[in-house]
């Protein structure tokens, strides 16, 4: 059976006085795709941002409770977030490649983490990352062109390649396909299928159909609480909780 890669226990998140997450207990399995669904503002993005400590950039955000990866406490004040983010990568809703060349986009991460000291090592890393994101064939002849010259779907795959380039263990995806057309979306979903063999993936999505397609485990959030979590098939065929069922069948008023 799968091991647990990330575990959260009694996780609370506050933005100033407003509480955004209430007592979240959620386990994420290794080399599996976990989908987080729920209406807007329910806290799913807040949750994944706890995993790579991106909530730190928001001054008024406070996180209490336990969240661990491989037994290491992510919330520890003394934890080196730079090292954490090497292990936990993130792909955002709107593709945000750096305004640099495609090559530089991918090589930036490894360079700052000291992976790849010679040019040929970096070349290799860039090629591998682009191959793993199914983008290599399309861009191998134009690595010097700016990352922003690609189409939306390609840009998102570039961002995925960028996340992979530092060899993380976990990839967090915050609605990665919401800005893409159906063809680009299909390519990314295919990619996720492949990637889950190597990485643990957490995906926040508004598309129920996508959650069913790509994930093995699904968690339903509502107003900051984790209402139900379980095997994807069960959640979408026969959920235990009425709120979950109301949400996925479109009965939310």
């Amino acid at each position, binding site marked *: 059976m799968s091991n647990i890669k990330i575990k959260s226990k009694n996780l609370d998140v506050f933005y100033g006085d407003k509480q955004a997450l209430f007592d979240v207990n959620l386990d994420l399995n290794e080399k599996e795709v976990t989908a987080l669904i729920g209406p807007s503002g329910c806290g799913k993005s807040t949750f994944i941002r706890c995993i790579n400590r*991106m909530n730190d950039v928001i001054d008024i955000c406070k996180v209490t409770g336990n969240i661990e990866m491989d037994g290491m406490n992510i919330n520890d004040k003394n934890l080196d977030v730079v090292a954490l983010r090497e292990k936990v990568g*993130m792909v955002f809703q709107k593709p*945000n490649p750096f305004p640099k060349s495609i090559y530089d986009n991918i090589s930036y991460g490894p360079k700052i983490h000291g992976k790849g000291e010679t040019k040929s090592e970096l070349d290799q890393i860039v090629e591998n990352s682009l191959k793993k994101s199914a983008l290599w064939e399309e861009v191998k002849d134009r690595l010097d062109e700016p990352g922003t010259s690609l189409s939306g779907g390609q840009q998102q795959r570039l961002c995925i390649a960028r996340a992979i380039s530092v060899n993380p263990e976990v990839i967090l995806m915050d609605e990665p396909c919401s800005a893409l057309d159906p063809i680009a979306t299909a390519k990314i979903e295919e990619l996720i299928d492949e990637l889950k063999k190597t990485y643990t993936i957490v995906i926040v999505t508004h598309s129920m159909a996508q959650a069913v397609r790509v994930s093995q485990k699904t968690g339903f959030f509502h107003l900051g609480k984790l209402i139900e979590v379980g095997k994807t098939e069960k959640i979408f065929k026969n959920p235990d909780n009425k709120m979950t069922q109301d949400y996925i069948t479109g009965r939310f008023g």
Partner: protein
Amino acid sequence: MTKDERLKKRHQAEKRFRFYGLASIFVALLFVVILVQNIFSKGSSAFKKTVITTEVFFDQELLEIQNGASQDEIMEADFYDVMIENLIKAYPAKDRDEEDELLKLFSSEAEIEIKKAFLKDNNLIGKTITLDLTASDDIDQLHKGNYPRDLPEERRRISNFQLIIYDYFVEKKKISKNFNNYFFNNGDSRDPELAGIGGALVGSLYSILICLLLAFPVAVLASIYLEEFAPKNKITDFIEININNLAAVPSIVYGLLALQILLATIQLPRSTPLVAGITLALMTLPRIIIPCRASLKAVPPSIREGALAVGASKFQSVFHHVVPLALPGTLSGTIIGLAQALGETAPLILIGMVAFVVDIPSSPVDPSSSLPVQVYLWSESAERGFVEKTSATIMMLLTFLIVMNFVAVYLRQKFEKRWN
């Protein structure tokens, strides 16, 4: 009102508005054209100087140079006698007074011009050459048509005899206009025909250079700190308000500040580009900080998040990603700030750059003037010859300013294209 009438009225209102807009542009352009035309018409003559073509014979006896004399000895030779000898020959004068009047037709630089010509070619001993010697200011202005001839002699600056000589020279084609190298090479002078912006230009350049070297790094680093690293609290807000206010402080206040602190307390040398540079830097700081901060703010947070997510530290995310994107805006803001600094007059007057400085400064701690101050000084002068020089200096200033602004626009467009 029917629907059609209403529609018609709306269209008419639009047409009226467009008319007002075009009329405003037209009026604005008209003012600019009038201004530029005025300056150019007054100043273009300054780029030429009147010269009198004269034969010069280098009499060895008068020069008192032996055969085989060394270079140093030649340098020491006195060319005054040679000058007098040759200039008197330009026109028959019957007495001392007329000789004096004849000599006054030439500028006071004539001796040095003859010496320079001699030094250029050592084989001139005993030889005669033809030189274009700079005419005096009065002849210069007369030849440029600025002196009315139909006044009685007592009210003219040029005597009747001088007029006769002048007309004779004109007839013999011995008077012409050459390119006025003195305007660019010389420093200030009591003689308008010899006065140039050389000193002021170098002084301005040194001042702006020092201003840039001091203001740019400090402003950019301050902006980066305030925008990216400083905690968002009341103190930071307070600083921001004050910086915005500083940009609006009249520049003369900075002059007073410089006077008290730089000159009186620290006792830096007066009237130097060093002090000017520091004063301008203080003034330009807020003018660079404001566009720099705006450029930093304009960088979308997604870029920062992207960098952080890949494991960059805050410092790396700012300096590797945000700052390069903010650079075009910062640069164009800096260039505009420097262009403003170039044209500052009041603070520089207060720190003493109104002194009459003849020499071209060789370092930032030599006393000097600056272009706008030079304009001020010359505009106060009584001599007619300075009028064209003042306008010509303004033309130079405007040219620099326009070039700097174009560079700013070009840089901004070039860098912004790379981003998108």
